[in-house]
């Protein structure tokens, strides 16, 4: 079996690095030299997609896609999101307003995949660069807004994209969420009543 996991998130949140850290194949990427304001953040940026593969036990594998972070390449989101079985949203804790970026991507997901039927795991990078802001702000924000994916509040973890074990743990959580969402689907009250 193969499952596609899509990494999304703003520029500089560590999507390409995360896939490079965990992939069992050489990552196919479409990074080019940044020529616009992105150059202030980093020298190269993804314009199409990253592709990596993580081999699991047996013949199972995770296909890892990385979406471009810039909104002007949002046509790639339309192509990549319908193929995904799980979403990883990467956020840069050191950015000016990470909660606004979280809201933006929640809206992007809601517009393209209504119903929040895919598991979502949120990986927060650069946590050490903004230590005065606790990681709990994301979960509190999600809970205040009542954001649920597959019936649960998305799990938020600190990740260093450069460290394979961090990315592995994030993907273990994703795979576990995918399994549980499939085996124990949340039945809405309306459906439950209709079944009686």
């Amino acid at each position, binding site marked *: 079996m193969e499952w596609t996991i899509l990494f999304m998130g703003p520029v500089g949140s560590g999507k390409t690095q995360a896939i490079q850290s965990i992939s069992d194949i050489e990552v196919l990427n479409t990074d080019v030299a940044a020529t616009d304001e992105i150059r202030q953040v980093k020298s190269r940026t993804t314009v199409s997609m990253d592709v990596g593969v993580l081999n699991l036990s047996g013949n199972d594998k995770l296909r890892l896609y990385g979406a471009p972070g810039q909104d002007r390449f949002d046509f790639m989101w339309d192509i990549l999101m319908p193929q995904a079985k799980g979403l990883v949203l990467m956020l840069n804790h050191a950015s000016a307003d990470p909660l606004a970026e979280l809201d933006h991507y929640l809206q992007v997901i809601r517009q393209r995949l209504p119903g929040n039927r895919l598991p979502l795991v949120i990986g927060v990078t650069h946590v050490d660069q903004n230590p005065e802001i606790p990681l709990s702000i994301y979960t509190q924000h999600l809970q205040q807004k009542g954001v649920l994916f597959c019936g649960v509040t998305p799990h938020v*973890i600190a990740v260093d994209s450069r460290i394979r074990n961090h990315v592995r743990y994030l993907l273990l959580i994703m795979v576990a969420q995918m399994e549980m969402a499939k085996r124990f689907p949340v039945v809405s009250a309306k459906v439950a009543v209709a079944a009686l």
Partner: protein
Amino acid sequence: MTKASSGEISKQVLHLASWPPLSQQWHDTAPHITRICALLARRPSVGMLIPVMLDIPPHIAHSLLEALHANGHIYPAAALPVRG
């Protein structure tokens, strides 16, 4: 949270309080830990049924539940009614 002795964990409905952080303590058992937490995040479950639901050897599941409980990541909410 309700305090429970080690033997009582398996008889009680367990809830997820928080996911454990990635650390050396959980490293080797991370695949089981993440599955247990993902289950409890969506469905509080009786301790003794968790190894059956997740197809984890009972002795491994039990020791992981003990460790998760000892570190405050799961908590028992209600004891199973005694029948007989």
